[in-house]
């Protein structure tokens, strides 16, 4: 069985260093770039490469806390609905005369609250898996968004709000800088703090962690609350990108986000994986989609490519284990 020790404490040999999943991702990433450059003349262009990030980074903010959730061996499929609900409430408040700055804060608060409710339900009802809890809240949160806004779309935000999704700092997109800041923060939280170490411990063995004094419940609630908060951050950027909002935005985001996290080498069995892998996966999938979009590939072919890539990505490590005689027991 693959050792479930903390990745950061693994003795780092040279061979071990290059055998990490992240290197595989780097190779894949280079393959994607090489392929795209060959396929389209428009790919290798600073402006295009830069602007492409603006169109796929919105959901990447949810990837960061989702890494924590999956390391905990949980899952959150309500994030897309949280995006919709917090965005709808923000827009609705603004339309009713609340200043945009305040509406923005409410948006973040709503997302945080939704995440907190998820965490609370999961902790209070341990018999229920997170799949089911977040499946129900997924339907409920979006349901509330529909009740609030019905068939309306609300928009006409102040000009400065546009800046979030479309603006540049110098020549770098604001959204890219924001993502970089959050990515570093979450990376530090996961790899450099006791909080992060506890998350790994719970993911590896919740019962043992509980007995050794880790406050499992508290950590789970914090992690799910963070997911809610980051969904609200995504809501801000997405709403700014679209200039308006309606209850059906961000449908299916949860699956995209989970796919990126898994591709990043974070094992859904819990306890394993690193932030850098997920971040690499965000850019890998983002540029793959963008490159194939530049040659105007059909949507159905794109679906097949992404699906096969996901299957391929998770099969390779399993095959590797088998090759070395270790038993990859997955249920």
């Amino acid at each position, binding site marked *: 069985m693959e050792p479930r020790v903390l990745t950061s404490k693994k003795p780092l040999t040279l061979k071990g260093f290059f055998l990490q999943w992240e290197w595989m991702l780097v190779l894949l990433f280079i393959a994607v770039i090489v392929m795209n450059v060959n396929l389209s003349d428009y790919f290798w262009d600073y402006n295009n490469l830069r602007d492409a990030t603006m169109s796929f980074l919105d959901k990447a903010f949810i990837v960061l806390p989702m890494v924590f959730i999956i390391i905990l061996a949980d899952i959150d499929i309500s994030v897309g609905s949280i995006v919709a609900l917090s965005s709808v409430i923000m827009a609705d408040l603004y339309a009713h005369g609340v200043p945009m700055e305040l509406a923005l804060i409410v948006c973040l608060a709503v997302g945080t609250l939704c995440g907190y409710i998820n965490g609370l339900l999961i902790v209070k009802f341990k018999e229920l898996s997170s799949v089911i809890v977040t499946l129900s809240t997924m339907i409920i949160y979006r349901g509330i968004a529909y009740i609030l806004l019905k068939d309306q779309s609300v928009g006409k935000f102040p000009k400065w709000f546009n800046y979030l999704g479309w603006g540049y700092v110098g020549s770098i997109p604001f959204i890219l800088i924001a993502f970089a800041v959050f990515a570093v923060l979450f990376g530090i939280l996961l790899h450099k703090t006791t909080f992060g170490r506890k998350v790994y411990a719970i993911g590896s063995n919740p019962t043992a962690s509980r007995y050794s004094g880790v406050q499992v419940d508290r950590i789970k609630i914090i992690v799910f609350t963070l997911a809610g908060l980051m969904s609200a951050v995504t809501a801000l950027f997405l709403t700014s990108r679209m200039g308006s*909002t309606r209850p059906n935005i961000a449908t299916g985001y949860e699956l995209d986000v989970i796919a990126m996290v898994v591709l990043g080498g974070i094992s859904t069995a819990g306890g394993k994986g690193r932030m850098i892998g997920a971040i690499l996966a965000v850019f890998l999938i983002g540029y793959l989609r963008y490159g194939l979009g530049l040659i105007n590939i059909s949507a159905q072919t794109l679906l097949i490519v992404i699906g096969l890539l996901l299957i391929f990505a998770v099969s390779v490590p399993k095959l590797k284990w088998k090759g070395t005689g270790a038993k990859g027991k997955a249920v």
Partner: protein
Amino acid sequence: MKKVLTLGLAAVMAVTLLAGCGGNNKEAGASGGGSPSASAGQPSDAGGKKRLAIIFKNTGNPYGEKQMEGFKKAVEENGDEAILKAPDQPTAEAQIQMIEELISQKVDAIAIAANDPDALQPALQKAMNAGIKVISLDSAVNAQSRITHVNQADPERIGRTLIQGVSEMIGGEGEIAILSATSQATNQNTWIEWMKKELEDPKYANIKLVKVAYGDDLRDKSVSETEALLKSYPNLKAIIAPTTVGIAAAGKVLTDKGLKDKVKLTGLGLPSEMAEYIESGVCPWMYLWNPIDVGYLAGYTAEALVKGEITGAVGEKFTAGTLGEKEIVADGDGTQVMLGDPFKFDSGNIAEWKEVY
């Protein structure tokens, strides 16, 4: 050692997988009927060939495939290259991404059938700032996001014609219901508004609109909603379904329940989907415009804009291939080009049209 070998092999596999996919697309583009054309490696200025793109709402929709086909035909008649795109889900987010991809490719024009009238505004304005001519067709974007709009038919005419048709079917009295798409579908909501306005006319005093139901353009939901209508309103005389999925689902329910003489059906439907029910008399007649013509007109409008023949201002005229001369007219605070009145399909002409689209 073994590990290194496996990992190396895996990397090679990955590269071949990706490269293989790249190869496949090109084939798919060349062979697939409705697949977008692969424009890989063709610089934009080669021989002065312009590139015009169309984005439909979602893939795998025959109505959209026909619009894209018409667009392609128009663009190729002008000796230019058409790029056809459609996301796998009908969302504005996916369309924004496609607009970005087209801006990167520096296309000359974008025609879009929008999934949301407002949400594409920032993206489309970015495209227009980059010098791309943007028009919408079928489902409009708001006036600030486009140069002009190609309207398949006047919403007012659609709404009023449907009510007039229903009134004729049921002899001017009885209960009617509407089975729409999603509750936030802009086209359908505008048409329903006009239907309600037409119903205010005193000559329809005996016609009562009892409910607007939403089938969300899903087969199973449209069927349940139709069944619920029939049961909740036993005296229902007619159903108007201004959506292609809804009208076919309603036709199926009425056929299965043998209600063809009791409840009439009309609305907007695809001839190929509805042929069965028009021939059997469940739906005496219905309306639709020719989606190929909508795309074709959009193609010529985009061409005229790219060539500088028009600027999208009211009163300008241009020749749209086989459709003859078209004029730009006002539409709220924007402008539009009108295709014409909706076309009526009945048992007399359905046989020839069901093979077309």
